[in-house]
């Protein structure tokens, strides 16, 4: 319970902002926070709070896995790379061949999710394949 006290503000905010399927579990000295945030902004806010309690996330006592509820099949997602284009690959993994590219800031369609990391996407030009989910943000 000690970790739940340390991260109380984080847990309370997750509850208050309506994170769905929220699970808070403490096991072997690690606090696991899982859930689905109503928006990308709320997910960012939770990571801000986590970073304010544990600067640069160096303590290693939290594993936080928050998905965004608006990232559903059919949703429009924006390529949020730093500046480069986003690789679209044949399969879910960086070991898979590149079959296309989506431009930086391009808005494409989320077709389905292979897993939390790799999403099947389609560009408006009809290119389809798997892209790394971290570089895709639902257009809200």
């Amino acid at each position, binding site marked *: 319970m000690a970790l739940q006290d340390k991260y109380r503000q984080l847990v309370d905010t997750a509850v208050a902002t309506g994170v769905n399927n929220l699970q808070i*579990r403490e096991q072997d000295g690690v606090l696991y926070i899982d859930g689905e945030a109503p928006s990308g902004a709320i997910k960012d806010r939770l990571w801000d709070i986590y970073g304010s309690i544990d600067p640069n*996330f160096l303590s290693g006592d939290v594993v936080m896995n928050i998905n965004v509820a608006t990232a559903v099949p059919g949703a429009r997602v924006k390529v949020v790379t730093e500046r480069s284009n986003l690789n679209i690959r044949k399969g879910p993994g960086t070991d898979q061949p590149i079959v296309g590219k989506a431009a930086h800031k391009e808005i494409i369609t989320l077709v389905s999710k292979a897993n939390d*990391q790799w999403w099947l996407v389609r560009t408006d030009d009809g290119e389809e394949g798997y892209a790394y989910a971290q570089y895709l943000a639902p257009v809200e």
Partner: protein
Amino acid sequence: MQKALSRLFKVTLFIAMAAFWLFSCKPKIKDADIQTQIQNNPVLSHLVATVKDGVVTLSGECKDLAEKEACENVVKQIPGVKSVVNNATIAPPPAPPVEIAADDPLTKGVADALKDHPTIKATVAEGVISVTGEATAANWRKVKIALDGLKPKKVDASGLTIKN
């Protein structure tokens, strides 16, 4: 003979009257007394009971069905209780244990997450991702979000240097 019959009649009458007296004049136990008995029983302290005309209604939360039934039986034993309406709920089962990914998918996931961050290194052992190297705070945050999504047991970044 007549005397014996009369005696039998008297004894029967006495038994009948005694039985009538026993049942009709049974001291009436007040609802408040039942309430007190329930409140003073430590086994029932987590439940709320209301009593009306000897009928006890229980509410509150029990940890499982066995406890719910046990509490009901304790209440039934209390003198004056005619019946029990057991509205106690059963606590939801405890959260399932945290699912930790196996090392093989974790290692693959870590490679994907670090592809665009060559200055950050990481190894995987028994579910723990140990991170070394160096990164800016902003880049490390992105990588940490990605690593936490892989369902690791722990992300140990004590060996990582944060650059300004």
